């Protein structure tokens, strides 16, 4: 098991395997998200209280799930790097940060636009919104820290520690709607309970979440492959790859 783990830590092997997966995952994610967007805009029912504004949920909730899952994934990669010193794991964590930051930005902006017609306010300083803003700042801090320390070569260790410490924010985001009084609605999905909304609403939402996951991994693969190419640019296999295709 550990042998396989270390083998996949080889940049060349990872690059070769990801070559086969990159385009199919990208195409599938575009198809799922594009098709599901039509479904959500045209065929999903309006909410009895929010009316058609509920259609924003289908792009807001998946972005929120992925911004948080992305952070957990980044922290896991950082832990692998700090424990086993596998460089590819550090590059994997680095590749998550810009993507996670953009998804956090998307959560905040679509949430703000959704808030205006439903709550009557673009922004309120409640626990869910503030902890999501902290998530965006954590991602941005990670990018800035890497930029500052990259030349010294200590960026992986510093960012790894920050990623793991910042993990404390994830349960705060998740449970903020239960722990504190908030304008924000409770979780749309729970693994242990039947969704509160009808099938015509949660099914497109579930498919959109799957589409966002595919999209996340598609962009992450693009980014980590670029990182491999930059770091390994002097090796014979990268030179032969650049020359052949």
């Amino acid at each position, binding site marked *: 098991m550990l042998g396989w783990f270390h083998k996949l830590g080889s940049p060349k092997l990872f690059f070769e395997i990801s070559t086969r997966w990159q385009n199919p995952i*990208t195409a599938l994610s575009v198809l799922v*998200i594009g098709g599901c*967007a039509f*479904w959500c*805009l*045209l*065929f*999903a*029912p*309006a909410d009895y209280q929010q*009316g*058609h*504004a509920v*259609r*924003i949920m289908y*792009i*807001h909730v998946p*972005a929120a799930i992925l911004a948080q899952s992305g952070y957990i994934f980044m922290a896991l990669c950082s832990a692998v790097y700090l424990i086993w010193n596998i460089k590819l794991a550090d590059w994997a964590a680095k590749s998550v940060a810009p*993507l996670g930051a*953009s*998804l956090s*930005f*998307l959560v905040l*902006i*679509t949430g703000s*636009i*959704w808030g*205006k*017609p439903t709550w009557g306010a673009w922004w309120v300083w409640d626990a869910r919104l503030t902890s999501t803003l902290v998530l965006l700042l954590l991602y941005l801090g990670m990018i800035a820290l890497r930029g500052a320390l990259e030349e010294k070569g200590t960026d992986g260790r510093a960012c790894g520690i920050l990623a793991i410490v910042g993990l404390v924010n994830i349960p705060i985001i998740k449970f903020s709607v239960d722990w504190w009084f908030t304008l924000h609605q409770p979780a749309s999905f729970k693994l242990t309970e039947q969704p509160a909304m009808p099938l015509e609403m949660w099914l497109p939402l579930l498919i959109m979440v799957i589409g966002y996951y595919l*999209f996340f991994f*598609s*962009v992450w693969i*693009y*980014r980590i*492959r*670029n990182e491999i*190419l*930059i770091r390994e*640019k002097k090796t014979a296999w*990268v*030179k032969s790859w*650049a*020359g052949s295709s």
Partner: protein
Amino acid sequence: MGKELGGFQLRFDNIESFLWMDGVGLFVWSSYFITLAVLTLNLLIPYLKKKRIKKEIREASEN
């Protein structure tokens, strides 16, 4: 309520009601367009970077 398409119920009668969405169209459409822009940039930036890296590696190995 609109007509049925392939077993799915269309939620709008015409294009105007689809765009207007009972007064919240601007909020819904701006959210979808911002999402489209952010997701497209997420794909485009690393794709263009890959092309640039490839060109640089090729030029470096030719010199």
